[in-house]
């Protein structure tokens, strides 16, 4: 794996990164919600921020927005220290646990946020219309938010995040309440934001979704970044091949040794070769046949982000146990 592990270097020359943190920490008494977060997110990227529950993802987002105050380290958003009021004009945010004034209509909620975001009066109607069109709520714009389903409220949340034409959008689990069609639409929105040069900071548990939209990802555990880099580097070139057969044997495993790390699975009816290069699979199959194997299926698999996510977390847990 070639991804940068644990810490990425300081901000590169040129325009300031969209987000840059150095040992950012938040403690509540003796409890560390975030230990020492160091990372840099260049402008214009769709950046995935991943981690298990309690890793400090939402705390990190709240710190970046000035909603909570750090107890250590420092951070910059769009080149300004976190919490800077003028910089917040360029930021959109959809929280995970959100709620809007349920006695207002969607267009009234957006109009209120236009005022708060300092959108010029002349531009408000257009921005509200565009935001509602983008998230597919134009036909329900006059309905009270209280009558919306959870999914529709999440769409409204995304529309609110788009108000003010932000340069940076932080989305905390933006598709958790959406059906597959809604998720697809949100992915399309993220792609179009990227084309417009907007930086998207995506905090999501849905790793397959992250794989589809993110340029780079960071994986956090116990408040620290344990891996950060382009998606391809995080997942690496890790291929595996699952060979289903009538019966495995030590001789068959030995015959596969030159092609990777073979292991018996599924009560001896399958062998998985980890680290196998895809172009050597035909040779491996030929070797098996020569050794007397009766093969029923061959399934090559690329290592998924989920596999790598779990592998990294296990590594992080082992390291933490050793430190103790």
């Amino acid at each position, binding site marked *: 794996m070639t991804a940068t592990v644990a810490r990425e270097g300081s901000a590169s020359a040129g325009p300031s990164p969209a987000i840059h943190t150095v040992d950012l920490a938040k403690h509540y008494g003796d409890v560390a919600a975030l230990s020492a977060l160091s990372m840099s997110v260049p402008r214009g990227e769709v950046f995935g921020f991943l981690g298990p529950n309690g890793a400090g993802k939402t705390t990190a987002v709240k710190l970046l927005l000035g*909603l909570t105050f750090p107890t250590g380290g420092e951070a910059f958003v769009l080149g300004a220290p976190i919490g800077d009021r003028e910089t917040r004009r360029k930021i959109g945010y959809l929280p995970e646990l959100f709620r809007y004034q349920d006695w207002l209509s969607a267009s009234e909620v957006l109009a209120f946020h236009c005022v708060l975001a300092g959108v010029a009066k002349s531009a408000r109607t257009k921005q509200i219309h565009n935001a509602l069109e983008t998230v597919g709520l134009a036909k329900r714009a006059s309905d009270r938010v209280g009558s919306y389903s959870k999914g529709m409220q999440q769409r409204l949340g995304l529309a609110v995040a788009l108000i003010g034409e932000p340069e940076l959008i932080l989305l905390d689990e933006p598709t958790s309440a959406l059906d597959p069609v809604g998720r697809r639409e949100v992915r399309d929105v993220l792609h179009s934001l990227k084309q417009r040069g907007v930086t998207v900071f995506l905090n999501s548990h849905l790793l397959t979704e992250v794989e589809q939209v993110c340029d780079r990802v960071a994986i956090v555990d116990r408040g620290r970044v344990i891996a950060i880099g382009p998606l391809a580097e995080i997942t690496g070139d890790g291929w595996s091949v699952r060979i289903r057969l009538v019966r495995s044997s030590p001789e068959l495993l030995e015959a596969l040794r030159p092609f990777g790390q073979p292991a018996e699975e599924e009560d001896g009816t399958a062998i998985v070769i980890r680290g196998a290069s895809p172009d050597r699979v035909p040779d491996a199959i030929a070797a098996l046949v020569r050794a007397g194997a009766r093969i029923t299926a061959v399934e090559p698999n690329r290592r998924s982000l989920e596999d790598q996510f779990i592998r990294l977390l296990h590594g992080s847990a082992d390291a933490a146990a050793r430190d103790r």
Partner: protein
Amino acid sequence: MPLLAIASLTLREAARRRVILAVALLSLIVIGLSAWGFERLHTMSVVQGRPSPSEAAATYALLTVMLAQMFSFVLAVGAAFLAAPSIAGEVESGVALVVLPRPIRRSDVLLGKWLGLSVLLALYALGAGGLELMVVKLITGYAPPHPFIALGFIAFQGIALLTLALALSTRLASITGGIVALVMYGVSWLAQPGATAAAIFHNEGLQHACTVITLLVPTGGLWRGAAFALEPVLIAAMSGTTQGANPITVSNPPTTPFLFWAAGWIVVVLLLGIRSFNKRDI
């Protein structure tokens, strides 16, 4: 301007959630019932001569003070229960998570809510209280000596309690903040007759404690201003004979330094609320 947008939203919320409608309807019912009572009393006085005109006038005055006290209490409860959830409720529900990241100061949110709720309370005090006094005047011909000053004091008292509940709302859960504000209002109200009774019995310790309570929470002292403005000279004099040791009538208005103290108290409590909100993790 964010502050005015939040003030306007606060007023719209009260209207949309039918707070204004519910309170207006209940107030109209109370005013209607009191009008019926005053009309009966007035008719008995005119037709049967009992009570005598002077007894009737004294009764009108006392009843007017008691009705004003009821409106004042409704206003206090309204102030506590509208203001206590205004910050805490939005933090608990998640509304604050989408409002506060906007390029606004947290003080804009707090002051906007204070402004919106203060306008609402002042309108209620002037509207419902004014209508009640007008109805009494129309039916009985009785008008208190300083009705507008009385209504001003009632609004002042409501705004003071609203400020306290709003400041508490930056730290305490909605229900806790509301209850604490109401308890403080009750203690402050009780401190007024308590201080006079302590003076009668020469209990200096209790007297000082009551004075401190009145200064810490000036709502009770402000109610004295409303009551005094509603009392005819005769009632105030009668109250003087008991040295003010009853919870309904008063013999003296609050002093000018106290009024400055109360105004300054509102400013200080607001600033403390802003400071507390600014330091709070959301």
